[in-house]
């Protein structure tokens, strides 16, 4: 038993960036790097994993893998894992990865360490760093069993291209249809090209100070200026007021994010919110209340009415961009 097996997630016909990040980390740790990619049309994508260090790429392709259904994907992956016999399995802690990793680990009768933001290697052991309490604390965690199943938060590690040609092998898996009980009736994915908050590089977020749902349009306009890696977020107050869907909520009972830039508009900075975005590289706060706790953590603070600042900021950024 040796080497690392990574689970490469496919979404909207593309390999997710997180897969390249975990492949790069596996390569850095040394030993053979195998990848397992599952999805309808996955075969056409598989070669891309070689660029990030995968020596061997196992492809599970077919119409039954069009939609992610945990039981189907777990069965397929576990068959590949039994062939590869890795000592470490990396997944991305994306929305799908959070569903997949624990089910897969339990099927292999081992534990899992989820949503890690850093991994180091000591001998054969992986030491994983993961946030607790939405980032109010961090733990260094080690797995007891083998393989060591670890899911890593997207954006936490960089992806690095390497020279090398991985061998692609199409695998035929036999599915136990009797165990696949859930059937997908419908999938509705919004036509947006915005990234998920957990994977965005720039987040423009709004709180109670926005005063109403219609004013989030202004934040969307600002986010758009930053390009396709930007999106919008919201505080719990804004979500609970019904101004924004809960999938936008940043904080301890929402999403934990670590973008390069977080612009908080009309957000006071409650402890639960700060926990969820405290690892952003740069925090900008716009709030007319100079006493708002967010100013004690923000790299740049603007004490003024956001309804005047945000439109002016949009104009100024447009000017800079020419």
């Amino acid at each position, binding site marked *: 038993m040796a080497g690392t097996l990574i689970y490469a997630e496919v979404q909207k016909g593309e390999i997710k960036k997180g897969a390249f990040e975990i492949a790069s980390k596996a390569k850095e740790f040394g030993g053979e790097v195998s990848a397992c990619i599952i999805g309808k049309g996955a075969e056409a994508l598989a070669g891309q994993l070689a660029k990030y260090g995968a020596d061997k790429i196992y492809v599970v392709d077919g119409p039954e893998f069009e939609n992610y259904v945990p039981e189907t994907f777990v069965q397929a992956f576990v068959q590949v894992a039994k062939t590869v016999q890795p000592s470490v399995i990396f997944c991305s802690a994306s*929305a799908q990865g*959070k*569903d997949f990793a624990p089910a897969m680990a339990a099927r292999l009768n*081992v534990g*899992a360490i989820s949503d890690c933001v850093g991994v180091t290697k000591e001998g054969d052991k992986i030491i994983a760093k993961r946030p*607790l309490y939405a980032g109010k604390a961090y*733990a*260094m965690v080690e797995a*007891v069993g083998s393989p060591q199943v670890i899911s890593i938060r997207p954006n936490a590690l960089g992806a690095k291209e390497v020279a090398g040609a991985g061998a692609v092998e199409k695998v035929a898996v036999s599915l136990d249809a009797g165990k696949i009980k859930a059937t997908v009736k419908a999938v509705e994915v919004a036509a947006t090209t915005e990234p998920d908050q957990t994977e965005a590089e720039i987040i423009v977020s709004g709180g109670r100070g926005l005063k109403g749902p219609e004013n989030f349009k202004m934040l969307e306009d600002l986010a758009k200026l930053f390009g396709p890696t930007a999106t919008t977020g919201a505080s719990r107050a804004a979500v609970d007021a019904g101004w924004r869907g809960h999938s936008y909520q940043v904080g301890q009972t929402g999403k934990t994010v670590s973008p390069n*830039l977080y612009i908080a508009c009309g957000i006071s900075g409650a402890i639960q919110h700060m926990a969820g975005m405290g690892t952003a590289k740069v925090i900008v706060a716009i709030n007319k209340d100079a006493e708002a706790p967010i100013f004690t953590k923000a790299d740049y603070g603007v004490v003024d009415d956001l309804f005047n600042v945000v439109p002016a900021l949009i104009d100024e950024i447009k000017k800079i961009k020419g």
Partner: protein
Amino acid sequence: MNTVVCLKQVPDTETLIKIAGTTIATDGIKWVISSFDEFAVEEAIRQKEKMNAGKVTIVSLGPDRAIESVRTALAMGADDAVHINDGAFYDKADPYATAQVLAAAIKGLTYDAVFLGKQAIDDDASQVPAMVGELLGLPVVTQVIKFEAAADKKSATVTREIEGGQMVIDVPLPAVFSAQKGLNEPRYASLPGIMKAKKKPVDVKNAGGLGVSAGPMTVIKEMSLPPARQAGKIIAGDDAKAKAAALAKALHEEVKII
């Protein structure tokens, strides 16, 4: 409809976390039901009320103090509870060991569905629901935001949140469901509910009594606090427009993001 709800008692989200060895200092903490588990409790009670039949059983792993959160769920309308009070397990806070204990306790019960929160808001692992399902040999649907059981209780149609959208799934019962925010609005316990809860049966067990001996599969070696963020600079300017211009300049020249 008979349901089981797994519930974890956690520090209130207001808590300022302090480290004590490989765990946290518990002095002064206000303990509450993990917020996603509240959605699970509420959904189970609603299903019972809707069908006008069945019962809701709470299963919780935790120390003596966890009984307060169990009683809160009973006061909301759950009927009885199993409290696994076993320090060898809850102290180590490992998802797989937790799932094994919960699954062992659930195995002896009669149920059509198991509800859990999508994650506990202390260790944020998001692992236990999928693992409990695996150990019980039942289908699992995580991140549920809408739940509808068929009248014959043989299946359910549920909506789960996926990245950037939703997925509607048909699943036969019994099955395991993890609750996401948006599923419902949890009720507060009423005063009569609180009085009744005191008399509802709670079965206290330990892991050995459930036939579980496996220890944790992951070990916390060290805990730390995130580096404290310092206040940066307040952008000066005569009016909002001038401040916005200075901020845009800083984002362009210092942060280099524009």
